[in-house]
């Protein structure tokens, strides 16, 4: 049997929590625990159940009076009261906590309140009397299971298309034109357009192949602007394959040319791409620095779409920095512009990113609602690279809600696409997520099978 994942990562805090509950036995106390996923919460409860007896009370919105009634009973034979709060704070609960906080101390056992990030923020802002009255508070982060943000990558060419069929048709036409085209510059244009189609289809190796061909041509004809575009596309392809340093190398080459040529729009795009790569490398301050440089130029040249994308990508960094409210604010700004511009592809990503922020706040219902909105558009426009990420995120949300079968179903849909697109870096992470999920389902054989698959891929990727 694989070892229990999660609890040991917070063993120090669990130890403090145990001492605190122990020392509060027989008297009232308020201990707040912020943990987003019901699964991880149950892990913590499981840990506590080996040391203490407790009564669990699930509180729904509109049940503030039930809290007061329970506390007024003032009788228990258990060591602790466990309160499981709803995803959102409601006025009745806010009132019960604020106005009857003394009851928690008059009860003959400590109250341990489990809530998500959103509810915790509700306590701090709306029930400050209760917050001030509390005992210790613990912020337990789930063991990191990678979720998939949907960053925007700025490509030199932007193609518009209705659906997958439209893209395939476009690719066939481009290939035909490539065979008959005599003008090198025209050929480069067609190759780069195809590279974007490969990006949308998630075929990054093919994308590199096409970009390298294009790069050779532009160097021959001395087309500096084309050279910059090729570097950008190469950077994007390598980034998607998980080669972040190589991606940065290409983005910097592109930036240098754009700056020399005074191409403001290209410069803004390069800064955004560099921001993406640094975000991947988890260097948030550098990522923010580049996104802001990009945003500044986008504002100067009146590039609304660029502005929107900067907001979206900045939102992802703030999401990574656990500033979810700020992330939501930025994603909503991005979405507003996407809707105004009728940019379906970006609109879908904004939905996905909003879903991710709400997921991190522990508002899983809202997260799933946004993920599904995004997924619908991904399917409509044939954006399979994002579609796979959409399944992945839905898998995460359902795994946290302990609907493991649904989680596996979505993860596997994601796997099918990643196998097709060859995105082995992402495939490895999804395998790990599946392994974790099987472990939660008490299926160590299957968990082991997927863990091995992930390890094999890691070996091949050299990570």
């Amino acid at each position: 049997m694989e070892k229990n994942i999660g609890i040991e990562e917070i063993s120090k805090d669990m130890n403090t929590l145990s001492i605190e509950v122990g020392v509060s036995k027989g008297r009232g106390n308020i201990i707040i625990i912020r943990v987003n996923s019901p699964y991880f919460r149950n892990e913590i409860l499981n840990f506590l159940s080996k040391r203490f007896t407790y009564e669990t009370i699930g509180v729904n919105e509109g049940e503030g009076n039930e809290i007061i009634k329970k506390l007024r009973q003032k009788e228990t034979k258990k060591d602790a009261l466990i309160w499981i709060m709803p995803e959102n704070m409601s006025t009745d609960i806010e009132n019960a906590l604020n106005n009857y906080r003394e009851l928690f101390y008059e009860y003959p056992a400590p109250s341990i309140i489990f809530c998500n990030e959103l509810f915790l923020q509700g306590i701090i802002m709306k029930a400050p009397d209760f917050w001030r009255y509390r005992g210790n508070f613990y912020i337990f982060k789930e063991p990191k299971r990678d979720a998939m943000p949907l960053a925007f990558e700025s490509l030199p060419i932007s193609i518009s298309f209705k659906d997958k069929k439209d893209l395939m048709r476009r690719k066939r036409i481009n290939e035909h034109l490539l065979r008959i085209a005599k003008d090198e510059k025209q050929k480069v244009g067609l190759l780069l357009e195809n590279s974007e189609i490969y990006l949308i289809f998630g075929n990054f190796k093919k994308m590199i192949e096409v970009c390298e061909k294009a790069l050779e041509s532009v160097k021959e004809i001395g087309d500096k602007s084309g050279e910059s575009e090729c570097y950008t596309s190469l950077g994007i392809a390598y980034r998607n394959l998980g080669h972040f340093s190589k991606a940065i190398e290409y983005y910097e080459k592109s930036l240098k040319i754009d700056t020399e040529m005074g191409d403001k729009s290209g410069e803004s795009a390069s800064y955004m791409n560099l921001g993406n790569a640094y975000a991947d490398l988890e260097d948030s301050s550098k990522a923010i620095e580049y996104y802001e440089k990009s945003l500044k130029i986008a504002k100067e040249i009146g590039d609304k779409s660029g502005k929107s994308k900067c907001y979206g990508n900045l939102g992802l960094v703030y999401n990574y920095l656990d500033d979810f409210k700020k992330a939501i604010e930025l994603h909503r700004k991005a979405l507003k512009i996407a809707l105004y511009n009728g940019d379906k592809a970006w609109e879908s990503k904004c939905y996905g990113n909003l879903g991710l922020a709400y997921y991190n706040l522990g508002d899983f219902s809202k997260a799933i609602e946004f993920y599904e909105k995004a997924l619908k558009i991904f399917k409509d426009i044939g954006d399979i690279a994002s579609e796979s990420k959409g399944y992945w995120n839905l898998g995460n949300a359902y795994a946290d809600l302990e609907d493991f079968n649904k989680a596996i179903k979505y993860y596997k849909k994601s796997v099918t696409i990643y196998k097709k697109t060859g995105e082995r870096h992402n495939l490895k992470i999804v395998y790990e997520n599946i392994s974790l999920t099987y472990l939660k389902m008490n299926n160590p054989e299957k968990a082991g099978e997927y863990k091995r698959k992930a390890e094999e891929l890691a070996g091949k990727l050299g990570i």
Partner: protein
Amino acid sequence: MSKSKKMKKAKNLLEVYNNFKVTPLVTREDFSQIYVGRPVKSKIIDDLKDRIENLEIGKYEKYLFMGHRGCGKSTELNRLPLILDDSRFSIVQYSASSVLDINDIDVNDFLLSLALKIYEHGKNNGIRFPKGFNDEFMDFAKNVAHIKEKDKRGRYGVGFSLPDFLIAKIHTESETRDYIRKELGTKISDLIGRINKLVIIIENKLKKKLVIIIDELDKLTRYEQAENFFYKNYQLLAQPNCIIVYTFPISLAFDPYFENVRHSFREDYVLPQPAVMDKNLTSPDETGVGFFKDIVNKRIDTKRRLIDEGVLEYAITSTGKLSEFIRLISDSAIEAYGDGSDKITKKEIDRKLDDLRATYDRTLTKEHIKKLIDIHEKKEAIDETPKNSIARNLLLSLTAVEYENKKGERWQDINLILLPLIDKWKKTLE
């Protein structure tokens, strides 16, 4: 109110955890063991005591008592009955939430419950009200609350007296509250007249003046609710002929309309947070820091050196809010104990400060941050228009705090815990 046990000075970290609770002091024993007098200018309760004790005969003043969350308000208020001359004053002290549904409060049920509490106080002190008055008062109360229930022995509920039974009904039944509001709508002067008669009878029989202390009215956290209760009814609240101390939501005091209301009350007392740093944050305020240190010395056996040298002052000047400081020491004690340590070091204090800081920071929007920077720079928390409530909300959530130094100077600034975030905030706004 919870009864507290005798507190011994902490000799180890677990005892530190147990001794540092944010619940207010209640009993005479609590006060004699761990109470620390507030720095000079903040001795509001002593001023209030002097004022009440020196009132002219026949004068019945009303006072508003307010303070920011966690500044020690309830403890101070609990001290008043203990220091008033009990040969001259009889105290009726209760919390609004014990007699009313604080989420659904109205001046009609409030005044009826006040009458019942005064009546109950008289009875508890052995007063026999004149029969005619007693019957009339009971009938009045029964009628306005539409009480018909009575058991065979003439008792209400399961052996409750009428006042107890009525208070329970006001507290728990919205139907009863609706009925009272409808009935008293036209008879409120009648009720106030009866309250005044009750006071006269009790004061004459006891030969003492009645002082009513009502705690937790400041808990009306929803602004509209607080505004409705106090601003629409302040004249009624000032009418009963007895000395009353009303706790008052401090957020209302930051509303321009407060100027119209305050004159109906003899005094509005604001219990400030003793400053632990000077106004410019350049050096610690020795008086304020000393106040916090005394609180620690009353709860911890200092010979045991349970807090690392220098760390205590660091913890005090990093929080500067009484309740937060108490929590910080308690949380750090349990953390240090968990680490196998026998004393609190800077490591635990820093970790807890970081946690708390991050938790506050996550709740702030760009608008909040802008306002906090403004408050920090101007040392003043004022909203631009009455409709705008950002500054009020920040004071409510304790991200902004009002301080007072020993000279009695008052100013507002951000919560000291948030100071290290200023540069980051400024960058964000750029």
